[in-house]
């Protein structure tokens, strides 16, 4: 069981992530969008969405730092465990709370504004529970951990090492079985969410448009007669009923 959860499932999820992204890029670019609902409602979105996204960007950054940088490195630069923890928890808390408040507003909006509710996709119904679950569990685990309720588990000595061992294809799955339940669930939700990214609106995160900063303002393109003439029918505007 431990082997399956912590040694196999992560790979399945990443495989689905890669395969799905490939499928989107190759066969369904038309479906690759944020599915913005701002034309329906702006006031709540203008508070919720930036709060969520900026929070989330720092949360993602925090995860990368926490999981990828080994403790020995920070030790070597002279950052004590205590300082590290203080830093991580304080910045993490701000970002986490912002993201949680943001998604709270966004979900409230999704239920409350009729046009937004109507615009909710089937994939959203699957994705949102895992997104919310992963976020709530993550916050719970952090709170439990910093209040000492989980015996002050140092995830950098367990979970992070397991996580990095995934990259060497020799997962230390025993390390995870010792982790607190809240962390375990957070990680399971997280990996499920990874698998869902390419199949839901979350795929938009892979097209963060930074190239905009570097291209000329006006884009010119030549007409490509092949594009319309020889192309097999693909998903696009629906047929008129």
């Amino acid at each position: 069981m431990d082997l399956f959860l912590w040694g196999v499932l992560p790979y399945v999820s990443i495989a689905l992530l890669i395969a799905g992204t490939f499928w989107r890029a190759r066969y369904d670019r038309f479906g690759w969008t944020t599915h913005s609902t701002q034309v329906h409602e702006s006031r709540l979105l203008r508070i919720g969405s930036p709060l969520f996204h900026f929070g989330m960007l720092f949360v993602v950054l925090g995860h990368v730092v926490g999981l990828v940088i080994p403790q020995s490195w920070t030790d070597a630069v002279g950052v004590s465990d205590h300082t590290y923890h203080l830093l991580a928890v304080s910045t993490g808390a701000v970002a986490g709370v912002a993201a949680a408040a943001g998604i709270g507003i966004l979900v409230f909006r999704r239920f409350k504004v009729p046009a937004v509710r109507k615009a909710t996709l089937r994939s959203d119904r699957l994705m949102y529970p895992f997104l919310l679950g992963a976020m709530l569990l993550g916050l719970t685990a952090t709170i439990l951990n910093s209040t000492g309720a989980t015996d002050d588990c140092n995830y950098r000595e367990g979970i992070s090492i397991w996580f990095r061992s995934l990259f060497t294809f020799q997962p230390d799955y025993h390390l995870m079985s010792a982790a607190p339940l809240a962390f375990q669930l957070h990680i399971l939700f997280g990996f499920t969410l990874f698998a869902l990214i390419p199949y839901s609106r979350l795929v938009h995160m892979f097209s963060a448009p930074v190239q905009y900063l570097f291209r000329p303002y006006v884009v010119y393109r030549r007409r490509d007669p092949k594009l319309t003439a020889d192309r097999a029918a693909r998903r696009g505007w629906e047929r008129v009923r």
Partner: protein
Amino acid sequence: MPRREATIGRVMAQIAMVMNLDKCIGCHTCSVTCKQAWTNRQGTEYVWFNNVETLPGQGYPRRWEDQEKWKGGWERTRSGRLRLRAGSRLKRLGQVFANPELPGIDDYYQPWTYEYKNLIDAPAGNDLPVARPVSALTGEPVDTIEWGPNWDDNLGGAPQNAPLDPIVEKIRDEVGEKIRFEFEQSFMFYLPRVCEHCLNPACVSSCPSGAMYKREEDGIVLVDQDACRGWRMCVTGCPYKKVYFNHATGKAEKCTFCFPRIEVGLPTVCSETCVGRMRYLGVMLYDADKVADAAAVEDEHDLYPSQLECFLDPDDPAVAAAAKASGITHEWIEAARRSPVYDLIATYQVALPLHPEYRTMPMVWYVPPLSPVVEAVAASGHDGEDAGNLFGAIDAMRIPVEYLAELLTAGDTHPVEAVLRRMAAMRSYMRRVNLGEERDESIARAVGLTGTEMEDLFRLLAIAKYEDRYVVPSAARADADALAEAHPLDDTCPVGEVAPNRVLLNLSPTRRSA
């Protein structure tokens, strides 16, 4: 000549449109046929690639001209460069999570339909079944329909609505005059609008994904539906609010200038079906190297002349040579020579750009309406076709002229007056011709034209036929010509030896010469 030659840069061709506002009867046929062709789908219920506004009025979306609010188009920085009015690229990326200047559905209108089914499905009873209005977005009943795509049509509700017209507000502030919206005292005309297919498109420049582009061959501005990621910044970028967000597909959509029709030499659907026959389509050649500077001139009043200077005279051999060097085919140069749009914009200079102060270099131009002036003269009991009366009225009727200037020349009344005088002169010159009186060259000379030019202009504006109004070269021919020019045929047969007895294809002479 040689001096000129040196100054021609990269020549580009553009399919452009001119609309003669005097001839628009406000029938909305263009809007309806366009909608049937392009936006009769879920997600585009509220979208009208072509719409017809009554002016003065708020337009669609409501008050779209208020750039203080919507931040569309370009602005000139103190260093003399252009920047999107909505802000720098970095700022816009920071605002991508929620765009502060995105019109909401209520700024367009809540699209609705009626429960028609109820009319035939209702059980028999004493009450007459009714078809309630329901929102096309949520399916919920709508108690009161409050706004639509042409709610203030024909000045309906003008006493309340028209003072909110951004141009009316501006004139009121600047001139201190009050435009009257009582029935007898108001002036009115229609403004049909499509995407301007600008030379310096702000929509393309706002797209973070680079999914929007201007086609090199014909200047048509399009959204690549596979590359759009739904960041919806283009909707803000376009000052004319002619990019729309399809809320069902999550992609931006816009007027395509009916490119599948243009490519085979047919006019756009709105032009084809225009009841007033007031639209003209044709090729404009322009110097692409001049556009950036022309769009950035300091004084807004210079924007119209500076755009005019970007256009190239296709009859000038130096231009034709430069066009050829830039890869424009013979058929397109030929079409540019016959372009009715070029004649109206450059030869007779009776067409003006819409809101040049947005600095996007729009390519759908308008012949301003003389009718408010003519009607006022006629209503006062004078001869509305007498040149003297009309000239006097153009000088006296400040409000329509100021209004048209805010619309078409960034507020400079001189070009508008010049155009109106030309139209007035044509009117009275032609009346003499029609009445069999002697031609009065002095009328033509008063507006800087000759009598022959006057008659040509009249023919173009009043009686031009289908082939004269729409001169659209086909893309397929252009492809074939380009191929032929790249690989000139020699006498040898590509398959091998020429067969001794040739087989002739059974093509009728008309087909062969076509």
